[in-house]
Structure formats: C-alpha cells, structure tokens
C-alpha cells in the first residue's frame, strides 16, 4: 500500500585486531585501566610523529579484497578537523580522496534472488577516546586508551531499500569480516559500529529525498528497528505535507524511537587537508597479490561448495558456514568419517545446542573433530542410542573425556542382552493388556507404544530394534 520507497546507506566502523594502535606502538587492547595505553602520539602532544602500522594497512587491504573492492595504488591520509574532548589533536587522521579501497560489493539474498550491494569505499582512520559522563553531572571524563585504535570505515552506496535488506547486508558483512579475521566484530565492545542514512521517495522517482542519519544502534536488530521507525516517521511527515529536516538522530532502544541529537555543535565543516605528518603510500601489485593469496575462502563461496561437495541441505550449510570455526570443525570431522549428512546433523543439532547453552565458540569446547566422530560411531554401531548419545556429548564436554570413557564410566551402553530386556518387556506387557489385545488382533503398529514404554523403563538404554523384535516375538508366542 505504501507508495514510498526507502533508500538506505550504511556506514560500518570496524576496529582492527592489530597488536598495536594505528599510528603508535601502544597496545591496542580493550578493557585496560584508563589512560594506560597512551603515549605522546595518541595524546596528540606537540612534536610527536604518527607512523602507520604496517599490519593495519595489510588488514585494510585484506578487507578491501574480501569486499571485492579495488585497492587504490596511491593512498594518503588527511586531517578531519573538529573539536571534541575525545579527540586530543583537534582533528582525526582519516582518509578523504584516496582511501585504501573503493568500488566493492557484497551480495545479499532476497528470496531466491541475489542482490548486489555496492560498497563505495573502505578507508583507514583512527578511533577517538572514550568519554564518560560523571555521575555528579558536572564534568566529563576522558580515557584516551581507545584513541588511535585502527578503524576501517566501510561505506555502502544507497543501494538498500528496506530495513530487512540492511539487516541482511550487515550480517553477511560481519560474517565476511569474521572470516577475514581482522576484528572480533563484537558490537557490545564497540568493535563493530553501524550508522545508517535513510530517506524515502515516491516509488518511481530517481531523485533522492532528504536523508537523516541514525546513530547509537547497539545491535543489528536495533539498526533494523531504528530504520523501520524512521521510515514510518518520514512517511508520516511527508504525507502530512511536511518536510524532513536533514539531521543526525540518536536511536533510543528502550523507548524504541529516534531522537534529535541535542548538540551545541554548529554545522560540521571538517576542512579536510592532507596530513603532512604522514607521507603517502603506493600499493603495488606484488603486495596486493600476496594479501590476496592469503585470503581465506569466504562464507558465500564456502556455502556454495558445501552444497555441492557434501550435498548438504541449504539449512545445514547455512548453519555450518555461519561460523568459520564450526565450518572448519565440520570439514575436519568429515575427513575422519565420510558421512557428511550425519556429521552435519550432529553439528547443527546437539553440538550447536551445547555451544549456545555454554555461550562458547567451537574452539573453546573440550572436544575435537576426532572425538565427536568417536561418539557418532558409537551411535551408528548401536552401542548407545541417539538420545543417550546426546547425553554422552554433554558429559564429554563437561569432563573433557572421549565417548568410550564416558560410556564405560556412566554405564550408558545400550542394553541388547535378551534376558535383561525381557524382564522389562514382561512388565510392560503385564501393564498394558489392552494394547496387547490390539496387537494380537492384527494392529501390529501398536507395538510401537510398547517399545516406547519399555524404552522409558530402561532409561533410554535399551536397543530399540531389539526391543521391537522381542516384543513382537513375545506377544506372538504368548
């Protein structure tokens, strides 16, 4: 019914996981005591000289290549001037007209269709310090530890046309960045931050409407909610004959609404100019090729390969690829036991459930691909049932033991011994005379009920096949 089309562009700031800061040798580390990772360069003291961190440049090139972008053969740094207490120099070192990378793209899926989201540029810059507002409300406190943390800013073209598309783009972007291993991408710690520009225009119009900029979204879900809210607001204002004012708005997650950023700042005039402290850089093909050679297989390519190489379902492939560690674990496990579907079932099911319960990554779990396969084999061989297998997995993870040890110690192996099973079966038959009559009169599928009852009595340890066999024989023989 809506006759408006939203137009959305996103800016993502990513903190790189280099050992040191972008322009000085201070540790690039989160969570240290205030103002302990600082030096004359990141404090902006007169006479100090910034020097670019080689690894930051390499990571930026890696990101550029991972986002299918062109790496600029010539890059330079510029000063973006503004006054704020978290910026000790009075300017931020950023890149203006020669960023590390430009003209990239990522594809998102819309239904069965792939849609290309163009990435305008990716540039390096330094992060600002952290401002804490004192409880007394009379002053602000500045911690410069974060100052000079290497950031890469990734800017899309206004190619996104719904909050869902923005959400999907952010997810595939984050996954790609995680695969590239350039950042922990942790939004809670602020390693990954996202601002959104949004406007609306009548469907069919090419001219862009007036945009607003949204900040302060702490999750992708919040980005989506903020965009939904803001698009509704634009529609209401324009439908009522009003005009959208170009401004920056802050998302209030608790109130679920955007709010005008109250600021004494006047219109920004950054007066970019080349930073004379930093000499320019040329990036030659040799360097680009060496970074390209080390690029890992990226998630979308891996997804396609998993579908064809392992004949996995779309669902399983999605789950496995959603984490590089999980995907690697899966492939290592399949090498040990070439039954991809079975391994995928265990990974996407019980293993993932354990990961979520424990809020752990696969690397932190006390289990190796070989030991998971050990367990899967026990289940396949009928030593333990599927159900008990899951229980064994929990013990394995708790105690760091292999499946064999756990099954022995806990006495979890399946009971296939006739005499032990018959004791249980006789009890079940005695307790369910009506069902027994049904079976006798030809309703053989009613036996399933008795198998279930017997299984329960055995604590899940009975061999179901054996149970079925024995029950059928017992009743026929009665």
């Amino acid at each position: 019914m809506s006759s408006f089309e939203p137009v959305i562009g996103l800016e993502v700031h990513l903190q790189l996981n280099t050992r040191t800061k972008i322009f000085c040798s201070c540790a690039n580390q989160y969570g240290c005591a205030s103002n302990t990772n600082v030096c004359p360069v990141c404090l902006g003291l007169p006479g100090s000289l910034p020097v670019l961190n080689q690894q930051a440049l390499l990571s930026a090139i890696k990101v550029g290549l991972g986002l299918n972008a062109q790496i600029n053969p010539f890059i330079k740094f510029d000063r973006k001037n503004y006054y704020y207490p978290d910026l000790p120099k009075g300017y931020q070192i950023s890149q203006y007209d020669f960023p590390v990378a430009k003209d990239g793209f990522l594809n998102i899926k819309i239904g069965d269709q792939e849609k290309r989201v163009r990435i305008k540029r990716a540039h390096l810059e330094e992060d600002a310090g952290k401002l804490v507002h004192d409880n007394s409300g009379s002053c602000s406190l500045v911690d410069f530890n974060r100052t000079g943390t290497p950031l890469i800013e990734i800017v899309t073209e206004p190619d996104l046309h719904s909050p869902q598309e923005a959400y999907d783009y952010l997810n595939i972007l984050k996954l790609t960045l995680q695969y590239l291993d350039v950042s922990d991408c942790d939004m809670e710690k602020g390693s990954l931050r996202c601002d959104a520009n949004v406007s609306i225009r009548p469907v069919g119009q090419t001219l862009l409407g007036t945009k607003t900029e949204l900040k302060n979204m702490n999750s992708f879900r919040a980005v989506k909610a903020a965009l939904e809210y803001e698009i509704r607001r634009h529609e209401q204002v324009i439908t009522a004959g009003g005009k959208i004012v170009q401004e920056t708005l802050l998302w209030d997650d608790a109130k679920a609404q955007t709010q005008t950023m109250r600021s004494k700042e006047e219109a920004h005039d950054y007066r970019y100019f080349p930073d004379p402290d930093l000499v320019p850089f040329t990036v030659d093909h040799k360097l680009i090729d060496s970074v390209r050679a080390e690029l890992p297989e990226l998630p979308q390519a891996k997804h396609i390969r998993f579908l064809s190489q392992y004949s996995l379902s779309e669902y399983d492939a999605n789950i496995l690829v959603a984490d590089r560690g999980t995907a690697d674990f899966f492939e290592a496990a399949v090498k040990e036991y070439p039954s991809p579907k079975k391994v995928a079932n265990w990974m996407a099911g019980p293993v993932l459930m354990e990961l979520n319960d424990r809020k752990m990554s696969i690397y932190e779990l006390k289990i190796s691909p070989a030991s998971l396969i050990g367990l899967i084999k026990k289940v396949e061989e009928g030593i333990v049932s599927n159900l008990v297998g899951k229980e064994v997995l929990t013990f394995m993870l708790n105690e760091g033991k292999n499946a064999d040890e756990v099954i022995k110690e806990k006495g979890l192996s399946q009971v296939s011994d006739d005499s032990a099973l018959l004791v249980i079966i006789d009890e079940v038959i005695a307790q369910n005379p009506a069902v027994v009559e049904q079976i006798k009169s030809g309703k053989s599928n009613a036996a399933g009920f008795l198998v279930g009852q017997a299984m329960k009595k055995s604590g899940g340890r009975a061999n179901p096949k054996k149970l079925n066999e024995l029950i059928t024989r017992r009743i026929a023989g009665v």
Partner: protein
Amino acid sequence: MSISKQDVKYVAALARIDLSDGELEGFTQTLAKIVHYVEQLQKLDLDNVKPTSHAVPMGNVLRSDETLKSLTQQQALSIAVEAKDGCFKVPLVIE
C-alpha cells in the same frame, strides 16, 4: 576572493576562538592579505601539474606491529589541567 568579517567569525568559531571587535577587524585585514598573496597562483597555468599532497619526496614509511612501552597513567595525567578516576577531567560535554 576577498575575506569578509563573516568568514573570519566563522573560522574563529570553528577554532573555538573568541575575538573582540578590534581583533575581528585586524584579522579580516591580515587574512585578506594572505589570501590575496596566495591568489597569485591563480594566474599560473597548472593544467599539467599533478596535485601535490606532500612536499617531501618520501613514501611508504611504515612501522612493524610491535608493542612498545606506553606512558604510565600518572605520567599521562601529569599534563592534565584536572584529573579524576584515572581520567582527564573536562567540562561537561553533553547537557
């Protein structure tokens, strides 16, 4: 291009500098002279000259990603006008 008082006021505001009426007048005149001096470049034919971002013929100066010792908190805060809780204390920036 001439420099107006309005321009000087704007630049002063960006630089967080308060100017008296007398200073405003003085800076308008001196800045106009500087701009006028640089304006001589407009007369030159620079079509075939590449933009120069840096005057020093040097490039690709990089640092290896190795941590060196930082200042201690005490050293860092020794230059603070005021400090509190290990931080630089500044006037409240959000109302």
